[in-house]
Each structure stands twice: as structure tokens, then as C-alpha cells.
């Protein structure tokens, strides 16, 4: 099922956060939302999460939930299975498999017995991503999941999302990223935002150009092509 947004406007007091935004996020793709700080990325994904009714399954990793709370890592990931274990709180074999699989995917199996508040920022983020993976939702929506992750963990997180989509065509992701080149590498569709509007959207190499980036970030960019033919953009 595609996610369609029609003429979405969000105000906070007198300032416009989102201004008449319309977009269709297609099913079966890895969508990356990029743009400068304050361009409305977080508000956009939060609005998408809110607009979902409960029956359409969706998992959300917000930007700031990495506060300190005391719970074993395994139990944190198990919260992703909360829906199905709601009443008796007993885990089925399927729940257990999902939890272990999610931990394995994020390479954090060794952290399972640890307490969440004893982890580093990056480890916490990996746990939160694993928690969302365990939810096994059709739409995975993540707000800056790579913010505290090192290069390798970031790649692991994004390539996991790619794998999940490749294995099951009912799955789709929307990921807010800051790293333009990472978005280019993993996304199958990019939304570039600026000042509460969608500046460019579409296939990565169509949406991301020197011109669109310069306009969005108010800064000059240089396009560099690697030996493999892959393009990189660096600010100059």
C-alpha cells in the first residue's frame, strides 16, 4: 500500500513547519528524506505515523528515544512484539525468533543480557532499530537512525533495510538521513526538503543534483564520480 500525503500543512504558532506538502511514497521502496536542519523532515515523518490507522502495520524509530531507562536489551527489543503479546505477555516461538533475528541483523546479539542504560549512544540506536525490525511491520519509518552510528553500523542498518525490502515486496521504508552520499547509495527514492516544502523528489540521481542541493542547503556542491561510476556530492 502506498502512503499518500495531500496538501499537508503544519504550523507551530506563527511559523510554518510544513507548507502544502503532497507526495506519494510508493510501496516496496527505500525512501530517504534529506534536507537541512529545520526543513520539516521530522514533522513530515511524524505526520505520516500519526495518519496511519492501527491496522496498517507500521514501526517507527523516533529521533530522540535514547534516554536512559533501565530494562534489559532483550526486553527492549521484545517491546517491538508488544502487540501480539499484549494480554498474557507470554512470548510465542515466533516472537522469540523475531527478537533473535532482529538482534542478529543489527549484530547486537551479544548485548541482549545487558541493561539498556549501560550502552553507548550508538549501541542504543542499534537496539532501537532492532526493536523496530522485530515489529515486522509493513512500513518501517526511521528518523535519523544513523545519527549516533559509526560508518559500519550505519551501512549495516541501511543494507538491512534494503535486504528486508528485497526479500518481501510488501515491506517499505522511509528513512530520514543527513548523509547525502549514503542516501544516494541506498535509497531507491529520495525526497529533498527545504523550508517546509519538497524541493525535489524521485530517483536518487534525478532528485539530487548540484542545483537542487545548492538551493536546499544554500551552499555550493561539487559532484565527484568514483571509479565505479558512483557519484558523490561534497560541499565546497
Amino acid at each position, binding site marked *: 500500500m502506498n502512503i499518500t500525503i495531500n496538501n499537508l500543512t503544519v504550523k507551530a504558532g506563527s511559523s510554518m513547519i510544513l507548507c502544502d506538502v503532497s507526495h506519494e511514497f510508493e510501496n516496496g521502496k527505500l525512501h530517504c528524506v534529506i534536507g537541512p536542519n529545520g526543513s520539516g523532515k521530522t514533522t513530515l515523518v*511524524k505526520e505520516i*505515523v*500519526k495518519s*496511519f490507522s*492501527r491496522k496498517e*502495520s*507500521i*514501526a*517507527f*524509530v*523516533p529521533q*530522540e*528515544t535514547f*534516554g*536512559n*531507562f*533501565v*530494562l*534489559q536489551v532483550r*526486553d527492549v527489543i521484545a*517491546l*517491538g512484539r*508488544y*502487540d501480539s503479546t*499484549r*494480554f498474557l*505477555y507470554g512470548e510465542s516461538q515466533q516472537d522469540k525468533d523475531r527478537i533473535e533475528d532482529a538482534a542478529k541483523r543489527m549484530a547486537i546479539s551479544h548485548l541482549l543480557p545487558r*541493561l539498556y*542504560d*549501560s550502552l553507548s549512544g550508538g549501541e542504543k540506536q542499534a537496539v*532501537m532499530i532492532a*526493536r*523496530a525490525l522485530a*515489529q515486522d*511491520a509493513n512500513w518501517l519509518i526511521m528518523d535519523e537512525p544513523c545519527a549516533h552510528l559509526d560508518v559500519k553500523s550505519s551501512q549495516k542498518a541501511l543494507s538491512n533495510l534494503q535486504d528486508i525490502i528485497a526479500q518481501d515486496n510488501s515491506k517499505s521504508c522511509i528513512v530520514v538521513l543527513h548523509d547525502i552520499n549514503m542516501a544516494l547509495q541506498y535509497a531507491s527514492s529520495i525526497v529533498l526538503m527545504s523550508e517546509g516544502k519538497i524541493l525535489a523528489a524521485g530517483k536518487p540521481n534525478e532528485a539530487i543534483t548540484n542545483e537542487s542541493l545548492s538551493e536546499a542547503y544554500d551552499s555550493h556542491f561539487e559532484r565527484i564520480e568514483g571509479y565505479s561510476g558512483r557519484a558523490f556530492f561534497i560541499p565546497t
Partner: protein
Amino acid sequence: MKALVALAVLLAVMAISACFGSSNISLSDIFAYVSGVNKSSLKESTITILGEIRFPRIIMSALVGGSLASIGAIMQGIFKNPMADPSVLGISSGSALGATIAIVIGVGSTAGIVGLTGTYLGAIIGALVTWLLVWFLARANSGKDLNSTLLSGIAIGSIMSALITVLMTLNMKNMEQVYMWILGTFSNSTLSKTQIMLFVSIPLVLFIILLSPQIDVLKLGDEAAVTLGVNPKRLTGVILSLCSILLAFCVANSGIIGFVGLIIPHCVSFLKVYKMRQKVIMSILMGMIFLVVCDLIARTITAPSEMAIGAITSLIGAPYFLIMIWKEGLVGKMKR
């Protein structure tokens, strides 16, 4: 497993507590009374003491202890604040104000509905009115921020406490009665009050236990909680309302007993129990044990007069708590 040990300790403590009092009763007599085996060998007076006085009081202290501790565990989880305890919503003070008004206007010991005194009914009405006030103010703030509920509660609590002081100053002759009540005591427990408390607290506590895993889900953030089928606003409203009603009955029965709701949940963390449901269950058991022991001390240490139980809970609880902090380097563990 830990819960079973705690349950065994609780039963033992209750039995031991039943032995002591104005006349001492042997453990074997208590066993005979509880099990019904050889009950005919017991003296009439022993049966009366145990059935009408001692067990109602012990069970009442256990119920109040369990309720206060579970409310504390829930509050700390909901407000994500290790300092939260049952008093933060101002409900204890509101309840005390209701009771004070009843005492001051002279209906304190008048029997009302089903033989309950004016103090009792005043306490319950005071608590519920306070909760409605806090809830209304927090909602007027569009309920955006849990901290506004917390702050409204603290502010309203202060107003209520100030009004109690005003009433006490204006009515010096009733001061002692009000004062004893504010310090907390189980000396007013009767069989009928204990029965009412049983009927009220057990369903409420079961309901709270049933809802408690959702509090863990709230830790993921409101939006993520919604995707897991938990409505943060509704959950907070329902749980805080349940806690308020439960607290109203606690305060009506025993006055204000501080400290239990604050420290028992932390002590449970030291036992390495972290999931909210287990934590609430363990808090209930530990709270029960704690108050049964404290009440035993309160009614025996200065017999025939009674010590205020609030003083005992603080004198035993606080040093224990400090030792735990010192041993465990609590700072990290206290974060919720």
C-alpha cells in the same frame, strides 16, 4: 521465583506480627486459627483478638503497603522520574484536607454510609476532588506535557497542605486528632474497613498490573507507542485515575504514610527486576512486607501507646535506602 520468596516472607511476617500485641499469642494458636485445625482448642478471647483486631489491622497494613508501593512504581514509570511517588499528584494532601474538614466541622466520628466515619468519607471525597482538579488543570494545558500534570499536582498539593494548616490553627482543640491522622496510623482499622479495602484494592491493583506492560512501551516515545497499539494519553489518564482512587482509599484508612511509594520500587530495582509488570508485582509484595513490619513496630515499641507509622517507615526505610545507594552506586540505576 523472587516473588515466591517474597510471598513466603510476607506470610511469615504476618503470622509473626499477629503474635505480638497487648496480649501475646503463640504461633501455634495463630496457625490453628488460620488453618481451622484444632480451632476449638482456642480461647474465645484469642479468636476475638485475632479476628476482630489483629488480623484486620495486619491485612489492612499489607493492603495499604502493597497499594502505595505499586502506585509509586507506576508513577515513577509514567513520569519517567525517579522522584515521583504517590504524593506528587497532591492527592494525599487533598485527602488529608477532606478528612480535616470532616474532623473540624465535627462529623469526624459520625457514622455515615455503612458505618464509615465522616473522616473516612471526607478523605475519599477530598482525594477524588483533588484528582479531578489536577486532571482538569493538566487537560487545560492540552495535556501536551506530563510535567505540567506533575507540577499542577505539586502546586495543588501545597495549597491543600496550607489549607490544612489554616484549619488546624483555627481549630486548636481538634489539632491532635488531625495531626495523628496526618502522621499516619493503622490504629483505626476495623474489620469492616478492612473488608471494604479488600474489595476496592484487589480489583484496582489487578487492573494496574494488567495495564503495566504498556508503561514500558511508553518509554519508546509517544509516536512509537501508538504504532504498538498503546495510546499514551488514554493510558496515562486511565492509570493515574486508577491510582488516585486506590490512593484515596489508602489515605482514608491510614492517613498519610510517606516514603513507601518512593523507596520500595527502587529497592525492587536492586533485586534486578526491571520489566514494569514484574516490578509492580514485586513492589506490591515488598510494600506489604514493609508496612506489616513497620506497623508491628509502631504498635509494640512504645506499647501501650502507639508510635506514628510515618516515623517508623522513614526511620527504617531511609537508612536502608542510603545503604543501598552507597553500595550500588545508585545514580545509574535510578534512571528510569
